[in-house]
């Protein structure tokens, strides 16, 4: 890891040193989307609390409401019933002490990589000059140092996504939300990004909410995996993952990994999210 200078003037808000204080509290949340003459229940009776510095992964199929859940926490949409609180404050507007990474890189095509990263601080009314060193170091840490002046269209998908991640980190937010951040990447890039993300998390200990389709990815990254099922979107179970860190590439070999993956797979089989073939290797 590189020495990344601290973000100037952005002290992370309060926080207890013992790492147990609840950072996010989701209380019996329901979310209904209304379109012309149809109601879609996106989330139903969701309870979840996420501790400070915790890495939580949410895994589930498309349409299980996991992105909606993330947007509820970020204050980008609001629950139909129940409540969401971040640091004991009920979320009733977009919260700003976070960084978001989307499945798409969401870079502005008229800005080069550096200026895309600095957009984050400009929009917050901070002086981008103060963040330039930090931006360069972060870009270096994700292997983009030679591309600071490149435009998004000159980069590959993986590189664009890395730039998007740096943008989410530049202001050193205490909370990082990632909505299928590696979903559009090829398998190898994806593996590397996962390893890098774990390293980054170990170094910074941010609270991370990581949304994914991939069971492996969720188990390899998270302290806890939240398993969701669709129609209506709800939490099936929450699984603690006690694998040692850093997990890196080796963790796939551990029985704990397999056990967790199997448990999640079983849930998805039981819920009809996955359909087991006749010749499946393991009885469930």
């Amino acid at each position: 890891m590189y020495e990344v200078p601290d973000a100037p003037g952005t002290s992370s808000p309060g926080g207890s040193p013992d790492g147990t204080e609840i950072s996010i509290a989701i209380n019996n949340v329901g979310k209904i989307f209304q379109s012309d003459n149809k109601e879609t229940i996106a989330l139903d009776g969701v309870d979840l609390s996420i501790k400070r510095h915790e890495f939580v992964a949410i895994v589930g199929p498309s349409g299980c409401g996991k992105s909606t859940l993330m947007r509820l926490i970020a204050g980008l949409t609001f629950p139909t019933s129940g409540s969401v609180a971040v640091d004991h404050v009920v979320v009733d507007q977009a919260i700003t002490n976070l960084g978001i990474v989307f499945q798409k890189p969401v870079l502005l095509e008229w800005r080069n990589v550096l200026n895309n990263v600095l957009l984050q601080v400009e929009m917050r009314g901070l002086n981008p000059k103060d963040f330039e060193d930090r931006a360069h170091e972060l870009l270096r840490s994700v292997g983009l140092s030679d591309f600071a002046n490149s435009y998004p269209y000159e980069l590959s998908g993986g590189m664009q996504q890395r730039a998007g991640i740096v943008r989410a980190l530049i202001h050193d937010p205490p909370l990082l939300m990632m909505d299928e951040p590696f979903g559009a990447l090829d398998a190898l890039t994806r593996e590397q990004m996962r390893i890098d993300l774990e390293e980054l998390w170990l170094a910074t200990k941010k609270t991370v909410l990581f949304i994914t389709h991939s069971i492996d990815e969720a188990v390899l990254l998270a302290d806890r995996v939240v398993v969701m099922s669709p129609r209506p979107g709800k939490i099936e179970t929450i699984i603690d993952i006690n694998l040692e860190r850093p997990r890196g590439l080796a963790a796939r070999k551990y029985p704990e990994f397999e056990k967790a993956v199997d448990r999640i797979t079983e849930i998805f089989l039981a819920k009809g999210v996955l359909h087991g073939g006749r010749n499946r290797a393991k009885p469930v």
Partner: protein
Amino acid sequence: MSDNPQSPTALPNKPSQAWAQRLKGARQFLISFVILFLVWELAVHAFDVKSYLLPAPSLIWQEFSGRWRYVLDNTWVTTSEILVGYLIAIAVSVPLAVFVAYFPTMERTIYPIIVFLQIVPKIAIAPLFIIWFGFGFTPKILLVFLLSFFPIVVSSIAGFKSIDEETMELAKSTGASSWMIFRKIRLPHAMPAIFTGLKVAAALSSTAAVVAEFVASDKGLGYLLLRYNGDIETPMVFATIMVLSIVGLVVYYAVEYIEKISIPWHVSQRSDTSRFDVSS
């Protein structure tokens, strides 16, 4: 950082190469025109075409060179009508597009009116403008304005509205003000669409000016066209049409040039060679 779009040199184009390309293009353009005029000249002489039907380029030039000052004075009249009407159209359409894009109620109330105004054949109401505003500058500007207005407003609205949800969510998560979001995201994002409208409008504006002059005027290229036509001075009709075309071309390419330097980052402005693939 830089709010104004980056300078074109920031893009990995080789400028010398681009210029060489452009010069080559200009040369081909010139050659094809020289050939066209040569064929025209020869054909007129070979088939002995009457000059009031189709004058030879040499005759057109001869007539024009005797009266170029007069034509130029009138060119200036038409050009200023185009420019003033066009600029007013920009000044009105772009802010209006912002309003419509930001306020859904504005869209429901104003948009149908805009569409209705577009459906009314504006050229047909040009005579009304004469009754209302007389023979001077005003009715011409008004017609140029009306014809340029619609394409700019429609494409600008599309530009301001076509922002994807994630970009807006990202912006909201920074707690930025609407003004900040407009300045840093919405406006630059809309620029390519706005320029599309500006180019369509530029092409329409010279037509509008000439039609307005047809209806009633005592100067301008449209007036000259009618007069020379009435006197069956066909070589001068041709000369006027050519001058008019040049005015239209200059206006269009001026807009395109401004587009090139304001949004060098957009797909439409990139040369293919500047893209390189890195597959990971």
